[in-house]
C-alpha cells in the first residue's frame, strides 16, 4: 500500500478558502501533508509523483441526502453498491437517510450501519437517525444515545413531521445535544393526492397538483421554531423561489439556518415529465422553469447552502406504473457533479462557489472534517476533467438502480480519480 503521493501540475480548488490556482498537493498516511500553491518543490527521493495534467484537484464531495435499500430492500441498493456509485461520482462521504426497513431509529441500527459500511463501503458513510420512531412523526427517538452511537444528524428522510408540537420538542431536544435537524418540508394535507407541480401541465395531464404552499407553509413554521429553539436547522430541499426568499429573510436574524436543494430541482423542470415519465416523479415535485431559475439564483447568492444528489434508488417495477401510482425518486450519486457543472459551463456560478455547496458547506453542517484542501485534512480528493464529454447511460451505472432523471444527457466534465484517505477508490478507464 502506497502511503505517500505528490500530485503535481494540478488546478487546486479549495472551496473552504475560495482559492483556485495551479499547484501541487502532498498526501501522506491518508492525510494532506502539505499544499503547495504555485510551483511544486522537488519531490523527495522515494516519494511517488503523479501529474494531474492541469486537471482539477478538489476535496471529495459530501452528499447530504442518500437513500439505499440496506437494510430491508437490498434489491434496490446496498451500502456497497451505493458506495461504488458514490466513488464514481466523486462523493467521498455521504449522509445516509434513515428510510430503511427497519428505520434507523435505534442506536443498535446506527451501529449496524457503521459496521456494514466498514465492511463493504469504499467511501465514508455517515449515518443519520430518525427524528421520530418509525418515521411516524409521533414519538421522539433517543437523540442522546443515537448521537453516542455515531449518528451525524437527525432527519425523517422523505417523511415530513406534521405536528408543530412534536417539531418544537424535537428541535429543543436536538439543541440540547447540539445536533443538527434536517427536515423535509411538506404539508401532507395540502399535497393530498397530488403527484406533480400544480399548474397548466398537471391540469392537462389530469394529474393532481402540488402547490408551492405545500412547501412554504411548513417552512414558515419550521423557521419560527428554529428561532424559538436555537437549533441548527437545515431545510433538506426546497424547490421554489418563495421558499428561497423565506430562507434568505430568516438568515438575516438566525445564523443557524441553512437550506439544501437536489441536483434535479436545479437542472430539470416539470416539462421533463412530458407524457407521464415516472423517472421525473420526485418529492418535492419538479417545478416550472422560472422557479428553477430562481433556485440557480439562490445557489449563486448563497441563500441555498447545500447541493445534494437526493439519490433514491427505485426498482423498475415501482416506476413502471401509471404516474400517480409510481414511486417517487431518482438516483443521482454518479451524475451529481457532472450535471451541476452545466451551471459552470453556462457561467451561471463559479466553480469554487459550486463546489463549496457540495463540500465545505455540508461538512460544516454535519460537523465532519472534510471539504478543505489544507494541511492535516483527510486526503479525500477528486480529480476532475472539466471538459470530458460523456453521455449518461443507465447501463454504465455502478448503482443497482437505473431510475436516473439524466438518461441520455450529454454532459461535460467528469471525475477521473477519487481518493478516500489517500487511497484510490475510483479511476475513470
Amino acid at each position, binding site marked *: 500500500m502506497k502511503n505517500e503521493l505528490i500530485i503535481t501540475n494540478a488546478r487546486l480548488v479549495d472551496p473552504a478558502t475560495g482559492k483556485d490556482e495551479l499547484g501541487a498537493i502532498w498526501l501522506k498516511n491518508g492525510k494532506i501533508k502539505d499544499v503547495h500553491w504555485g510551483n511544486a518543490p522537488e519531490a523527495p527521493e522515494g516519494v511517488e509523483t503523479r501529474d494531474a495534467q492541469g486537471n482539477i484537484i478538489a476535496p471529495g464531495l459530501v452528499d447530504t441526502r442518500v437513500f439505499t435499500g440496506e437494510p430491508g430492500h437490498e434489491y434496490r441498493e446496498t451500502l456497497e453498491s451505493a458506495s461504488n456509485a458514490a466513488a464514481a461520482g466523486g462523493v467521498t462521504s455521504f449522509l445516509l437517510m434513515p428510510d430503511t426497513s427497519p428505520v434507523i431509529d435505534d442506536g443498535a441500527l446506527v451501529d449496524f450501519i457503521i459496521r456494514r459500511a466498514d465492511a463493504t463501503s469504499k467511501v465514508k458513510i455517515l449515518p443519520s437517525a430518525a427524528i421520530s420512531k418509525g418515521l411516524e412523526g409521533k414519538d421522539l427517538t433517543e437523540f442522546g444515545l443515537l448521537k453516542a452511537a455515531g449518528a451525524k444528524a437527525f432527519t425523517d428522510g422523505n417523511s415530513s413531521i406534521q405536528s408543530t408540537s412534536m417539531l418544537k420538542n424535537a428541535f429543543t431536544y436536538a439543541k440540547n445535544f447540539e445536533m443538527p435537524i434536517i427536515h423535509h418540508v411538506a404539508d401532507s394535507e395540502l399535497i393530498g393526492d397530488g403527484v406533480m407541480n*400544480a*399548474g*397548466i*401541465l*398537471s*391540469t*392537462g*395531464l*389530469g*394529474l*393532481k*397538483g402540488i402547490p408551492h404552499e405545500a412547501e412554504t407553509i411548513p417552512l414558515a413554521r419550521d423557521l419560527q421554531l428554529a428561532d424559538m429553539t436555537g437549533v441548527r436547522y437545515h431545510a433538506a430541499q426546497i424547490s421554489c423561489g418563495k421558499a428561497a426568499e423565506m430562507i434568505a429573510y430568516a438568515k438575516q436574524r438566525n445564523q443557524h439556518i441553512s437550506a439544501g436543494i437536489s441536483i434535479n430541482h436545479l437542472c430539470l423542470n416539470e*416539462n421533463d415529465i*412530458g*407524457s*407521464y415519465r415516472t423517472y421525473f416523479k420526485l418529492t418535492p415535485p419538479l417545478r416550472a422553469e422560472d422557479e428553477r431559475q430562481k433556485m440557480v439564483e439562490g445557489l449563486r447568492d448563497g441563500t441555498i447552502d447545500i447541493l445534494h444528489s437526493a439519490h433514491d434508488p427505485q426498482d423498475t*417495477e415501482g416506476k*413502471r*406504473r*401509471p*404516474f*400517480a*401510482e*409510481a414511486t417517487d425518486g431518482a438516483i443521482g450519486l454518479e451524475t451529481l457533479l457532472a450535471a451541476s457543472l452545466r451551471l459552470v459551463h453556462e457561467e451561471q456560478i463559479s466553480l469554487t462557489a459550486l463546489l463549496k455547496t457540495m463540500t465545505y458547506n455540508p461538512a460544516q453542517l454535519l460537523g465532519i472534517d472534510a471539504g478543505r484542501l489544507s494541511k492535516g485534512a483527510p486526503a479525500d480528493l477528486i480529480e476532475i476533467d472539466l471538459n470530458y464529454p460523456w453521455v449518461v447511460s443507465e447501463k454504465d451505472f455502478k448503482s443497482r438502480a437505473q431510475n436516473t432523471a439524466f438518461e441520455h444527457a450529454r454532459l461535460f466534465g467528469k471525475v477521473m480519480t477519487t481518493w478516500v484517505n489517500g487511497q484510490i477508490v475510483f479511476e475513470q478507464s
Partner: protein
Amino acid sequence: MTPNSRTAKNNASGTNAPTQHHFSQKHLLGISHLNPVEITELLDRAEAMVDISRQPKKAKHSLKGRTQINLFFENSTRTQSSFEIAGKRLGADVLNMAVQTSSVKKGETLIDTAATLNAMQPDVIVVRHAASGAVELLSQKVACSVVNAGDGTHEHPTQALLDALTIRRNKGRLNGLTVAICGDVANSRVARSNLLLLGAMNARTRVVGPKNMLPRGVEHMAAEVFTDMEEGLKDADVVMMLRLQHERASGKMIPSVREFYHFYGLDERKLAFAKEDAIVMHPGPMNRGVEIAPTIADGPRSVITEQVEMGVAVRMAVLEALLTNGEAV
C-alpha cells in the same frame, strides 16, 4: 395537453385536395393526439355508422374475424356496452374482461394484464382505468391498437367525439359555436377532451363552475372562464353539464348538494340565459336534481339520449378506422 399533439400532415401532392384522408393512427389515446382533419374524418365516418345502426339489419362485416377486448378497470356499464355493441355491429369478436383491482398493486396488475392479453393476439383493446396516463402506458406494452375509454382525470376521447357529432348534427357545424361546459371541471376527463376537441375545431369554449372545481391553468384550455352560471350561459349555443360526484358535495369541496344545485344546477331560470335554441347535453349518468333539473333532462332541448346513440356510432367509426388503417370499407 400532452406535448405530442400532431399537426396536419400534408398529402403527397402537397395540395389540399379534398380526397379521402387515410386515418393512419394506431391508437386512440386522447384528443390531444388528433388534428382537425382526423377529427373530421372520424365524425364523417360516424355519420355513416348512424345510418347503418338505424337499419333493421345492422350488421357490417368490416371487422369480421378481428378480436376486441374491453378491459375496464373501473366499472362503467354504459360505456362498456356501447363499445361492445359497436364492435359486434362491425362483426368483431368482443370479449369483456372484468378486472378485479387491488388498491395497492394496481400498476402491477396493469402491466401484467397487458402482457397476458397481448399474448392472446387481440386486434384492439379498449381500456378504462382510474389513473391518468394508464392507458398510454398500457399501449406501450402491447402490439395491438388501444382505445382510451377514459383514464383518470386525463381524457375520454370517444366521449368528446360523440359530443361533437351530436352538436354537429343539431347545429350543422362546430366552428364558431359557443359551448359552455359546466360543473366539476377539475375532476372531469370529459371536460378536458371536449375542450381539446372543441378548441381544435374553433368553437368558442367556456367553462363554468365554482372556483374550487376549476383546475389551475384552465384559462389556457378554455376561451372564457366563469364562476357565475347566468353569465357563463349567456348566449350559449350548447350547454354541457358535467356529473358531480356525490362524495364531493358533502362538505369536502362543496358544502351540500342543495347549495350546489342552487348556484350551479341547470334549471329553467339559468337555461333562459342561453340562446333560445340552445341544446342541453350530459355525458351521463345524470344526477337529476343535483346538476340538472329533471324537467330539463327530459325536456325538448335535451339531446342526452341522442348522445348515447351517437356513442355507438362514434365507437364503430373509431374501431373501424384504427383496425383498417383508415381504408374505406
